[in-house]
């Protein structure tokens, strides 16, 4: 037999992979909508608490008005949807059940399989997000300071945030190759993220040292940076700098993941069938 002709291209694969992710998720439109409703609960609690605090302090807290806080948490819901990635505890299941076999026997890295699947699904989630966002907008009266650069920057920052968080989760998932109970470590990750990313509250509302620590870590580029970009709190230069940090963290996390993956995969037991 002669070696088969191949016309592989990563761009073509990404298109196909994202299409499959979209198609799979559109099968479960109601689930996507309910997931979004679930996602509303967390920011709504934060929103109610912090707008109440701001109201009590004359309509502003740490320079954030109630309208800005409302805008922050409404955009939060979209950013949350976008930075969903393959969770470390799902790696635990995948390794324990031997579900990595189907990925490893094909000539494409599992990273691309998962990244494109989640990327494709996000388009469905975005559609489900629109009514949720409209509802929150009517209730909480957000204030946006939009400019074209913010909207354009947001699109890049949103995908940058997804990439950084996806790589963080993916690298963390590698722990499961050494212990099949890595979900405990995921709990620590979520706790750190809540505090250091702007997920719980904008970092301005945190003690100064928390914001200082956050500046050295990737978390804030996955939550607060895209949100701030969209609601108009960042100047064009700050947006560019932020996107640069997202690229830098993507590269760093990508290298870490690649190094760990090489060792991790040697430990894979391919149990199950």
């Amino acid at each position, binding site marked *: *037999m002669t*070696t*088969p*002709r*191949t*016309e*592989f*291209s990563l761009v*073509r*694969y990404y*298109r*196909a*992979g994202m*299409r*499959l992710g979209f*198609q*799979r998720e559109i*099968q*479960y439109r109601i689930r996507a909508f309910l997931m979004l409703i679930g996602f509303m609960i967390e920011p709504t609690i934060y929103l109610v608490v912090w707008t109440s605090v701001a109201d009590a302090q004359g309509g502003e807290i740490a320079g954030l008005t109630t309208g800005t806080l409302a805008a922050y948490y409404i955009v939060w819901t979209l950013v949350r949807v976008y930075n969903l990635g393959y969770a470390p505890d799902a790696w635990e299941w995948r390794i324990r059940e031997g579900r*990595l*076999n*189907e990925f*490893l*026997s*094909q*000539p*494409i890295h599992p990273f691309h399989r998962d990244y494109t699947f989640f990327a494709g699904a996000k388009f469905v989630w975005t559609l489900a997000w629109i009514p949720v966002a409209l509802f929150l907008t009517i209730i909480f009266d957000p204030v946006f300071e939009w400019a074209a650069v913010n909207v354009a920057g947001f699109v890049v920052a949103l995908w940058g945030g997804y990439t950084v968080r996806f790589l963080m989760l993916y690298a963390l998932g590698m722990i499961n190759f050494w212990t099949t109970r890595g979900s405990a470590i995921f709990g620590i990750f979520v706790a750190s993220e809540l505090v250091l990313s702007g997920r719980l509250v904008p970092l301005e509302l945190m003690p100064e040292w928390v914001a200082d620590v956050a500046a050295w870590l990737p978390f804030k580029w996955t939550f607060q940076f895209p949100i701030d970009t969209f609601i108009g709190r960042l100047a064009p230069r700050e947006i560019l700098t932020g996107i640069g940090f997202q690229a830098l963290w993507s590269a760093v996390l990508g290298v870490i993941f690649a190094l760990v993956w090489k060792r991790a*995969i*040697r430990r*894979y*037991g*391919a149990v*199950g*069938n």
Partner: protein
Amino acid sequence: MAHPLDSPVVVEALTKTFRVPVREAGLGQSVISLFKREYRDVEAVREIRFDLASGEIVGFLGPNGAGKTTTIKMLTGLLFPTSGSATVLGHQPWRREKELLRRIALVMGQRNNLAWDLPAVDSFELNKAIYGIPDEVYRERKAAYIEVLDVADIATKPVRNLSLGERMKMEIVAALLHGPEILFLDEPTIGLDVTMQRRLRQFILDYNAETGATVLLTSHYMADVSAMVSRVIVIDHGAILYDGPLTGLSDRFSAHKTIRVEAIDLPEDLDRLGRVLERKPARASIEVPREEVSAVAGHLLTVANVTDLAIEETPLEDVIDRVFSKEDEDSDHTQD
């Protein structure tokens, strides 16, 4: 057996040992295991050697836990070996080079590789992108396979709504779209009804005949083995017990043949000739030692008015059963 240089698969002293934690039952042992973990090494595959010739279909047989699937997982790059070497199409499989993975396929009968919620055709499209299958080739192959397997109507149904047999057909189509040169089939017909088994077997045989692909097949169904392979490798407890022609398996492991005879005046003392398996007024089956087959058959022809006489090999299932029973007895004695 092929010369290793011509062989798409060459396995040399391949060994895989798993380290598994062990502990006795009980709360006390649970607490102890917190501080001091004990492990046991389990040798799943022990220094096995074989090679496959180009275009050959080889049966890889053994009982559950014999090491078949572990071997296949090493040869397809899913597992790193503990020691030894293997080359598949000139590549070390566990390096998982794309050049190799594009040229092989792995089908596991109990595993679903298709997008569960979508019609199989959507997974075919994904495979097209993964393997970089040119448009024209993809269209031709997909159409041909769908026609041969008669699956046009089910290819557009979500996979979750398909029966096991229908799903397996889709799995096979998905696995062959990129035209693999080596097929690793791990129990591809498991759980399928007889008609479906036959259809899949024929499909794989046709693929082998048309493309010259090499096939390594594991199956517990001897019908698969006898219909598809001319050579078998028998593995048990991680070691190879036999590697040779399928026909030689009976010669090696079965010291008997069965004579089926029909005559209206069969002698009463048939048990003098061998072990009587069946006795009817005008028909009997007798198991006799291989070296006595000619003599016994000749004797029957002279003492009775024989209307039909057939000499049969011991059924493959029985031969395999004897191989593994013998192996178990031997290993039990070793442990004594």
